[in-house]
């Protein structure tokens, strides 16, 4: 699969403030999560992708074209910004249709596409109401509707899940899944890591305007093999099991918690999980529960940013 987004040494400054710093990344099609804490440069990167701003340095291509001031490319991209960006006095349908018209569709066609997009985000019952009367979630879905109405090849969505209630959140994630399955490339940013993880395994981690890691969550995790991974066990006899763990070279630290809890840090998690059942049976310590709390994105992120 060829890359749809290629950034090479892309930097962007706002005066003396660094938005992005020498970011080099290549993103392939499909659904990709852009992850990073607030102020990491996610929004700046997205604005660069959709041509809102131009890079201060470096080269960037989206769908094979340079984005800034590229009107032809704008037809192929849908952008849903983080900002509210809605006119309260307009009806939802009017608002979306007015924006769709800017792509060059006729008034009738724009209206049809706007209605279809609003139905897709489950706003069909509210589309004739004024946007000012919408809840935060409905406003977010209206923004999504304007981004998908013209059937873009690439959908760039900045923090799409913020402000949504759990039901709307689930529906929005389902919509992204549908779009991805239908062939639309989706790049969505979030600092709510588990939500990105529930949608896609492909992530790009950025921090302080730099690329931190890229790939599937598993790949990224494997890249981090030098970092110890924590495994939390609940056992009947934690001290006996801890004594046995100390014989393993890959175990770096052991910590007790509560009466029966044991946290083990290992540098070779695969070997650890391979050896654990036999060890537990041999000692008869009775493992009640086992989890790896730092296997999710949040932990990876914590590791990476220190």
């Amino acid at each position: 699969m060829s890359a749809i987004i290629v950034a090479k040494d892309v930097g962007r400054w706002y005066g003396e403030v660094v938005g992005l710093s020498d970011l080099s990344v290549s993103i392939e099609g499909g659904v990709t999560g852009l992850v990073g804490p607030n102020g990491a440069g996610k929004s700046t990167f997205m604005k660069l992708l959709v041509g809102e701003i131009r890079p201060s340095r470096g080269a960037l291509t989206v769908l094979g074209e340079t984005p800034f001031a590229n009107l032809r490319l704008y037809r192929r991209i849908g952008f849903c910004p983080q900002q509210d960006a809605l006119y309260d006095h307009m009806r939802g349908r009017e608002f979306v249709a007015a924006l769709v018209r800017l792509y060059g569709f006729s008034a009738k066609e724009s209206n049809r596409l706007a209605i279809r997009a609003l139905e897709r985000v489950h706003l069909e019952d509210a589309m004739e109401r004024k946007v000012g009367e919408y809840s935060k979630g409905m406003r977010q879905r209206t923004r999504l509707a304007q981004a998908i109405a013209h059937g873009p090849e690439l959908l760039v969505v900045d923090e799409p899940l913020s402000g949504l209630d759990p039901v709307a959140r689930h529906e929005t994630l389902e919509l992204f899944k549908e779009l991805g399955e239908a062939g639309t490339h989706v790049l969505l940013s979030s600092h709510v890591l588990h939500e990105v993880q529930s949608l896609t395994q492909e992530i790009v981690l950025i921090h302080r305007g730099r690329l931190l890691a890229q790939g599937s969550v598993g790949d990224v995790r494997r890249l981090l093999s030098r970092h110890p991974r924590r495994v939390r066990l609940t056992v009947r006899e934690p001290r006996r099991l801890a004594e046995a763990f100390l014989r393993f070279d890959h175990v770096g630290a052991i910590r007790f918690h509560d009466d029966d809890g044991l946290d083990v840090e290992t540098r070779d998690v695969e070997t650890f999980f391979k050896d654990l059942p036999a060890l537990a049976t041999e000692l008869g310590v009775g493992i009640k529960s086992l989890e790896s709390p730092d296997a999710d994105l949040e932990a990876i992120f914590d590791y990476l940013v220190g």
Partner: protein
Amino acid sequence: MKATTHTEIYRPFEGTLSTRSFRFLTIAWSGIRLASKKKLPLLVMLGPPAMAAIIFSFIVYASYALQKGEVPGIDAGQAQMVLALAGKNTEVAEQIVSFLTFPLVRGFVLLTVAWFGAGMIAEDRRLGAHLLYFSRPITRLDYLLGKFLATAWFGCLALLVPAIAINTIAAFSSPDWSYVKDQWDVILKTVAFSAAWIAIITALVLAVSSLVERKTLALAAVFGLVFLTEAVSNVLFQLTHESRYRLLSLFRNTDRLADWAFARKTSYDWAPEASLCAVSMLFASTLFVLWWRLRRMEEVA
């Protein structure tokens, strides 16, 4: 159909994509529709200029009727009143220029343009709506032209349309279309002067709008700017008795230009070129501010 890879399905655009290059018209139309949603401000802003236009139209009509000696439904006393209203001057051009520079009309034109234009860029910046525009196939110039036309539209409703209405009354009332035949230049000058005045205040309002993030702030800034320069101009003139200070006043300059354009006797003692220069500088400055702010929008986005 489900894709096994995401590049297998290309989703072509549906419908008809227009290739027309006047996309700013879509923005302008959308801006006009949005601003027209509230009917009360429209009524309040456009009412007084409309009433002034009716009065001036009546004067023009009565002037021609008096010339022809046909004043249906008006007795001699009322005819005298009409002449008194006309300032003892029944020249149509005089009436039109009086309408164009009538303080109430001028004030309401400024108010109308400021009211509808103050939020055009400021609110977009506050809401982040410009992000939606700029990720679509329009240029920043399209955006600016769209906002400019939407704002100027309301200025036209307040000034140009009434002025054209007065000219139309004059054309129909004049004997044997003499107004159109002999004074056609007045019609052209009316349109040109109105358009220029609307363009200047529209650019001023939009420039201020691009500098702030609230409509109310922009409104206050526009009126502050216009009336502060007016006040400073008057005070300096009163203190020094030097008429060059009156060039600071937008209203004085437009009065001077109106006198010059319509070949009317002027009460100002400076050359029209000086006023033309002052107004051009103001216009150029506003355009520069607009262009600079639009370019900077990418940084504040």
